[in-house]
């Protein structure tokens, strides 16, 4: 028995060792995209290029960046393929991407104001993504909640305890959503909206995928998501709907050749394929449901398919990527310290504010109304004002992550200040709202 096991084990080891050395005509794709999408591309590319093998290496975007940084040149995967443009920026700055111009025709330079391809040539837009709202129709029916249309709808008391969103520090797509709201409404008003939405939220999920997943299975009623999450779930049979609010932005999801790749030639070939008409058409698969970057592909799309080029999505916001980039870390850190880590207090304050508003509506009272306005102002005003976000020195503090002790101290004091301030504001707002409710009696 034992020798039999040993023999099996040895055979398995040999078999594995043999496959380890055999792979030559193989292109390795490092991606954060779901399996439906990657296996469709793998199958199509291998069919179009007999004798070549596609090896998919699936990691979350931030883990993918860490992996590329820690792998030695020559052993790296060939292609990096993910949504968040900032991950590509980081990689380009670290010298981990190689310039490559696949020279494909028909792809426009810009979508709205946003460049489809990296102006420096390090990465290319491979698909487009818009941000919107996804909801579970059964959940909304069961809880008698109307379907939302705009971001601004989500601040209404009727949505309290039914929303979910991720955090911009965790998910590049959520960052774009928040930044879209901030750019559409302006810093103060935008944050006020974000804080009220977060106050209505039942969870700030750790991964962007947590939101569509929770909406699909009915844990959450409504989620702020990237379009293909909503569309693919709907096409897979889940009782969900997706809609673009009028203030949405369309930005590209990207693909890039890795500097120091093992098989750069095959990598180029894969990128070229992904941008070709055949590669773009794969995006229309119901289980993938992404927006192609090549306009002509939309002619093959099923009726009702959103077309960012055809005016079916009204993207009112001209996304300013430079502004977004300049305050990227401030927005992420502020969101985490004022919302993610203080979510309990924010929700508690929001709850009593809603309750007080109901009571005051039934029994109007000037004193109570004044208190409630004060409570709202306290709870829903960002702890950092806009002038600060234009301060170069302030922004530089966030940009540099390799900090010495003195800078780290400065940073820590700031984080502590934000967190404490936010908590005090929420607690005080809750107290004021309680007084307002009492005044209505």
């Amino acid at each position: 028995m034992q020798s039999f096991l040993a023999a099996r084990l040895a055979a398995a080891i040999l078999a594995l060792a043999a496959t380890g050395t055999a792979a030559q005509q193989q292109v390795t794709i490092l991606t954060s995209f779901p399996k439906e999408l990657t296996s469709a591309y793998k199958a199509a590319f291998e069919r179009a290029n007999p004798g070549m093998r596609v090896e998919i290496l699936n990691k979350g975007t931030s883990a993918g960046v860490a992996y590329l940084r820690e792998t030695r040149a020559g052993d790296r995967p060939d292609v990096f393929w993910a949504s968040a443009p900032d991950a590509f920026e980081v990689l380009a700055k670290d010298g981990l991407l190689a310039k490559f111009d696949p020279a494909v025709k028909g792809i426009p330079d810009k979508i709205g104001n946003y460049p489809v391809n990296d102006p420096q040539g390090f990465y290319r837009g491979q698909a487009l993504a818009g941000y919107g709202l996804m909801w579970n129709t059964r959940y909304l029916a069961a809880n008698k909640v109307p379907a939302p249309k705009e971001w601004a709808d989500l601040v209404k008391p009727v949505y309290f305890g039914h929303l979910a969103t991720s955090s911009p520090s965790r998910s590049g797509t959520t960052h774009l959503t928040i930044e879209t709201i901030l750019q559409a409404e302006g810093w103060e008003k935008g944050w006020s909206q974000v804080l009220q939405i977060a106050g209505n939220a039942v969870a700030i999920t750790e991964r962007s995928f947590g939101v569509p997943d929770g909406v699909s299975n009915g844990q959450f009623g409504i989620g702020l998501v990237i379009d293909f999450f909503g569309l693919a779930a709907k096409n897979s049979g889940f009782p969900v709907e997706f809609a673009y609010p009028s203030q949405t932005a369309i930005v590209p999801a990207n693909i890039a050749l890795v500097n120091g790749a093992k098989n750069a030639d095959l990598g180029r070939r894969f990128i070229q394929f992904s941008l070709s008409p055949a590669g773009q058409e794969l995006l229309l698969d119901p289980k993938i449901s992404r927006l192609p970057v090549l306009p002509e592909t939309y002619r093959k799309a099923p009726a009702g398919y959103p077309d960012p080029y055809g005016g079916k999505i009204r993207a009112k916001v001209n996304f300013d990527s430079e502004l977004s980039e300049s305050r990227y870390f401030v927005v992420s850190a502020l969101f985490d310290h004022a919302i993610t880590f203080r979510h309990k207090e924010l929700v508690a304050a929001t709850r009593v504010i809603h309750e007080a508003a109901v009571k005051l509506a039934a029994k109007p009272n000037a004193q109570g109304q004044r208190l409630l306005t004060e409570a709202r102002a306290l709870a829903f005003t960002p702890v950092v004002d806009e002038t600060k976000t234009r301060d170069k020195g302030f922004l530089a503090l966030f940009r540099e992550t390799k900090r010495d002790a003195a800078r780290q101290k400065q940073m820590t004091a700031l984080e502590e200040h934000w967190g404490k301030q936010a908590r005090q504001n929420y607690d005080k707002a809750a107290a004021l709202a309680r007084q307002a409710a009492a005044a209505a009696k």
Partner: protein
Amino acid sequence: MSAPLAAPGAVAPLNAEAGRWSAGQAAVALAIAAFLLAFLIWPVLTVIRVAVTEPDGSLTLSHFGSFFQLSLMRESFANSLYVAGMTVVLATLIAVPLAYITVRFRFRGAILIQTLGVLPLIMPAFMGAAAMQLLFGRSGSVNQLLGQWFGFTLPIMEGLKGVIFVETLHYFPFILLNLSAALANIDSAMEESAQNLGASGWRLFRRIVFPLALPGYVAGASLVFIKVFDDLGTPLVLNVTNMLAPQAYLRVTSIGIEDPIGYVICFILVGFSIAAMAGSAAFLRGRDFATLQRGAAAAPRRDLRPWQAVLAYGWIVGVLLLVLSPHLGILMLSLSKVWSFTLVPEIWTLDNYSVVFRDSTRMITNTFLYCGLAALLDVVIGTAIAYLVLRTRVPGRQWLDHMATVALAMPGVVLGIGYLRTFRDTEIPFTGEALLGSWLIFVLAYTVRRLPYALRSCNAALQQVHLSLEEAAQNLGASRARAIWRVVVPLMAGGILAGFVTSFITAAVEISETILLTSRESLAPMSYGIYLYMQSIAGRGPGAALGVVAIVMVALGTYLSHRFVAARHAQQFMKGQRP
């Protein structure tokens, strides 16, 4: 064969007064130390030195000051302690009666319970938590039923409560496994004497049985505490961020891999785990738990009185229902196409399984290869360390124990990054293949990371083997190595097997390190596949199906290994009866 008698020096190390050790022991200790230094300490140091250095490389303690200045960190610290402590209390309440009933009473299905008790461990924490959301979450089946029938819901999955609930059901087997092994090893004569002297029931348990099984309990409880203290997956799935491990992870992955506070947290996690281990060792020190006669096979099992049987079965069925609920959730998920806001899935299908068997058989064999080898290495090293620490006087032997224990507290992300950094240019001797591109890296990573589990079990097992049994063997002419091989190891078999099983199944569900170290999908183990499939927007069915396959296979393995040990015990017992 008469040499040991003529040369008493050979047994001298057994004598507590002597300060000598043999060269062979020192060589084994050195080899283990070298292994741990290369594959644990060094990779970890390359990462966590960030916590105590300036970017220019000079040393500083200022980052620790920064850490304690943040009220968020102080709150997270308190929350982590609270959750870990509460989980130990609740896990004890579940595990102690289960262990006692199954080991001490004639009871149908005891082996079933032992096997089922292991089941929670073979599910990646994030998968268990996801399944429990479907059943106990705010729109889960239970709350839908409660809402329809009684008009209220139980927010049992919200916040810290939810973490404690999930962790308790996930980790109580650590106590169950270790405590059962310890109970089975207690000399039945002790219990019988106590009974003859008139003790029974609760008193017998409290005064005799439990104190004798204490090493097993403490080993299990300290493991639960540490595991919960550093667990990342469960809080993240439940969206709880204000705890230490999630804070470390969030900082390292979002602020940046160079963020010092994240590494200060890692530092604190490591320190705390070592303190918890040292604390449990200090607590046990100076007490004698060893019993002379080993009674595993011969231990008399008592019959349950009718009212006891009702209580016991009631308790067991209740606990089993709770424990099996995540499995039930995963099973339903694996058979469903769409499950949304209904009590059970509305569209059933077997497609998910065909997807898994079409695409992922390689992952299944990979898991068995990596985790099997890792667990094997773990029990070999674990037994060696336990023996060196408890039975020899090799200088610095305690440090082997401490070093191995550090792995417990290492967040997988840190060790994963440490491996990528340290072995970037390392090639495997003779083949010239990059170590990081080979499957060996998984075996090494799992061995190091799961060694503490095996070590705790081996330690507890060895503590219960009385020194005089080994001395007797040596006095009868066996060499020391032979005495270990023929007497000590067989007597430790239950504990070693428990260690193997725990190492194997926890390695099989390791995820954070696995994601970082996977360089090709063809090398990936099942845990990676489950993670990948569970991220699918078209439904998590295939991920659940792969999870069910994992559960069934590991459960089968555990069951068979229990049978194997039981059979061997019986065999030895028969041999002993022969004239």
